[in-house]
């Protein structure tokens, strides 16, 4: 508090029961006599120079998620406190089963966690206990930071009932009948309590005491495999990071082999010293088990970032997670040389798609998919290859494209190049439905030498509504040999009295 004597006390306010009340405050505000739940007008009467901010739940949640992401340096199982009663109560659960020994034991881990969070400017209360419920209660209402194994029940008994994650109304009504601590209700007959206050009370009690299992739901899907490297001296250079990636990738090859798996998606997580965590994801088209390729994909991914990877003061932990892996088809199934060559060629193609996607972004590498409509610009779309199924990925078996009925023929009725938006032209044409004779497109006049049409494509009234018009398409060749695909929009006399003409495509 003495560190910034000149800044006014900070409080956070929100509307509670039709009054603007204080929902959070700092030490300086507390020292000057402001309390939680005070109305803002009262607080202002006490401290006129109050620096107050409106509560912003979304930002709070975003910050909490970031902290949760950072906490994954200790364990992959980090969960937000999702209890509906804990709306304003910003807590995280971490399941550190099997992780503490990596950091020198529970006490060292907790101390490290607290020191690092404090260094980032957060005020935290921590508790380690056998059950999430007990840890929740002790972190808020208890004194001890580490509850010995099996001692959680005795530890929580003297605490206030608020420690059971109950709605405040229920705590208040329990208090009215004289039940103030967890110990009070732990020894009472269960049936009457449950009948009076609901099953929730008993469930929370059982969860705190460890009589009922409680699972936390991690914010990130747990990786199938994960390797990491910690650094005493943070790494900053691109080459160093690249080396680390290669070493990490080499480390996951052996476990993948043992399980008969190949990597499909993996995520690199870079923990910066100041608490920022960067993610880089790469995907592969087919199961991969090659450390060099993994490194190369990540290098492309880093090269494709708009601004370089911001290393700041360096990364002190780099982790490689295998998010998704598929059974690896060994090369021994295709023994014939020709098959091997084909396989290698296909691998080359898939690897290319992976590399392009990693650097340019997955949605920039696309393949055609067809839609079931006759309106030309709607009849196809382009989808990122990464989002297509593994089967339709390979050239031949694209199920969506099997729709095309026409085989190549002598007569070409569709252009090679199609404009995304048909372009308006000035045209002289025979009424009511004759071909164009002269037209002007992009500022140039053309005289029609030959034309074919119309090919009538009806509108999709179920999509475009009442005003939709029919299109009459013409193939047109001008006197210099340019071949165009254009249409008259609307039937003369029936749909419009002045049909417009549009240019839609170019033939070879």
């Amino acid at each position, binding site marked *: 508090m003495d560190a910034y004597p000149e800044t006014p006390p900070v409080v956070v306010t929100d509307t509670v029961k039709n009054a603007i009340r204080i929902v959070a405050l700092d030490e300086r505000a507390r020292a000057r006599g402001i309390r939680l739940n005070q109305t803002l007008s009262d607080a202002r009467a006490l401290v006129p120079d109050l620096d107050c901010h409106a509560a912003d739940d979304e930002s709070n949640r975003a910050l909490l998620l970031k902290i949760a992401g950072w906490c994954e340096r200790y364990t992959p199982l980090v969960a937000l406190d999702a209890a509906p009663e804990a709306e304003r109560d910003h807590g995280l659960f971490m399941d550190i089963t099997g992780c503490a020994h990596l950091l020198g034991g529970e006490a060292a881990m907790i101390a490290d966690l607290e020191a690092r969070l404090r260094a980032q400017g957060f005020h935290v209360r921590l508790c380690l206990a056998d059950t999430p419920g007990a840890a929740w209660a002790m972190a808020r209402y208890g004194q001890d930071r580490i509850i010995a194994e099996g001692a959680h029940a005795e530890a929580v008994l003297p605490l206030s009932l608020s420690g059971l994650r109950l709605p405040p109304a229920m705590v208040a009504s329990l208090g009215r009948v004289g039940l103030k601590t967890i110990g009070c209700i732990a020894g009472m007959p269960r049936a009457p309590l449950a009948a009076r206050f609901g099953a929730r009370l008993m469930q929370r009690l059982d969860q705190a005491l460890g009589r009922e299992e409680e699972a936390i739901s991690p914010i990130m899907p747990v990786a199938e495999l994960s390797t990491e490297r910690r650094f005493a001296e943070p790494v900053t250079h691109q080459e160093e990071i690249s080396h680390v990636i290669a070493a990490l990738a080499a480390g996951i090859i052996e476990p993948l082999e043992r399980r008969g798996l190949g990597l499909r998606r993996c995520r690199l997580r870079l923990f910066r010293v100041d608490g920022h965590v960067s993610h880089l994801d790469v995907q592969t088209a087919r199961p991969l088990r090659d450390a060099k390729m993994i490194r190369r994909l990540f290098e492309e991914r880093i090269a494709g970032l708009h601004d370089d990877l911001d290393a700041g003061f360096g990364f002190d932990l780099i982790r490689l997670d295998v998010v998704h892996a598929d059974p690896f088809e060994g090369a021994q199934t295709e023994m014939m040389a020709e098959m091997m060559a084909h396989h290698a060629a296909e691998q080359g193609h898939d690897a290319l798609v992976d590399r392009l996607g990693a650097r340019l972004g997955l949605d920039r590498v696309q393949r055609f998919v067809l839609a079931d409509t006759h309106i030309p610009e709607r*009849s196809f779309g382009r989808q990122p290859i990464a989002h297509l199924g593994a089967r339709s990925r390979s050239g031949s078996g694209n199920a969506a494209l099997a729709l095309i009925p026409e085989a190549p023929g002598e007569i070409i009725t569709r252009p090679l190049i199609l404009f995304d938006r048909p372009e308006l032209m000035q045209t002289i044409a025979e009424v009511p439905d004759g071909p164009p004779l002269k037209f002007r497109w992009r500022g140039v006049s053309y005289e029609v030498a030959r034309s074919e049409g119309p090919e009538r494509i009806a509108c999709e009234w179920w999509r475009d509504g009442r005003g939709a018009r029919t299109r009459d398409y013409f193939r047109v060749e001008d006197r210099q040999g340019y071949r165009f695909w254009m249409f008259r929009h609307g039937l003369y006399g029936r749909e419009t009295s002045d049909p417009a003409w549009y240019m839609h495509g170019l*033939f070879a």
Partner: protein
Amino acid sequence: MSLSRLQTATDILKQRTRAYEAQAYQAHRGMALGDAGASQPLALGASAVDHCLEGGLVCGGLHEVRSALARDIGAAAGFALGLAARALEADRSGRSGVVWVSDPATRVDGGGLFPAGLTQYGLDPSSMTIVEPGDLQGAMWAADEAAGCNGLAALIFQIKGNPARFDITATRRLMMRARGSGVLALILRQSGEEEASAAATRWRVNTEMSGADDSLERGVGAMRLSLTLERNRAGRTGQWLLAWNPKVRSFNHAAPHPASNRVSGANPPAHSLDRLPAPANRRDSSGQMGQVLDRRQDFGRVS
């Protein structure tokens, strides 16, 4: 040391120098032609063109297809896609797929590929991979990567104008990568001028009036392209009138249209300065707008 001994030494040196020169010549020729020994040249199907190219286009090599005007992109794309279709059909040791990389500048007035049109043209749309990077640098990188990919039949790199960044060094890199992998690499330059590049051949494509359609009096007949081989590192240049047959995926010679004043083969090449190298250090004229070019051309033709 006696004089005769000295002469012997000089002879040996001369001999060695000659050997080196021959080697260097072979290497240079190999560079221009691509690795001719490693891959079969890709024949176009039209006899005169194939004869001029000594068998066809070199597969592991870079070729440029150019169209002077924005509206010529249909014809130029037709020629490039025809080559790609032939490369796909040739199926050299399991190569599959065509990668189409486009510079974002081409999207402004160029339009996009139409799958139904591709099918009718004899090219399976499902074999196409479309890559659309956000900037020219990304596009050049993607083209480089694709040119170096063993499993690919063809790469088409669509570019607009003559950007300064895509210079002779960039084309040489593209050529080297294509030579290593055996991919048919095509630069499709839309509304661009001729420029020195490492490409083995450079083609200019113009449209030509189609022949008469038997079934329909005023109908549009089979398409024709007027091809000018502007530059050929390994041999002669020329000009031909070709038609594309989608059914057999082959180019063939077309008879000139009676109304057309151009005569294929007989007239001198459009560019009498073909053999002169185009300058490499032209300033950056990053593809003038299609409209302006069109108008100028229009006046030229009317007069």
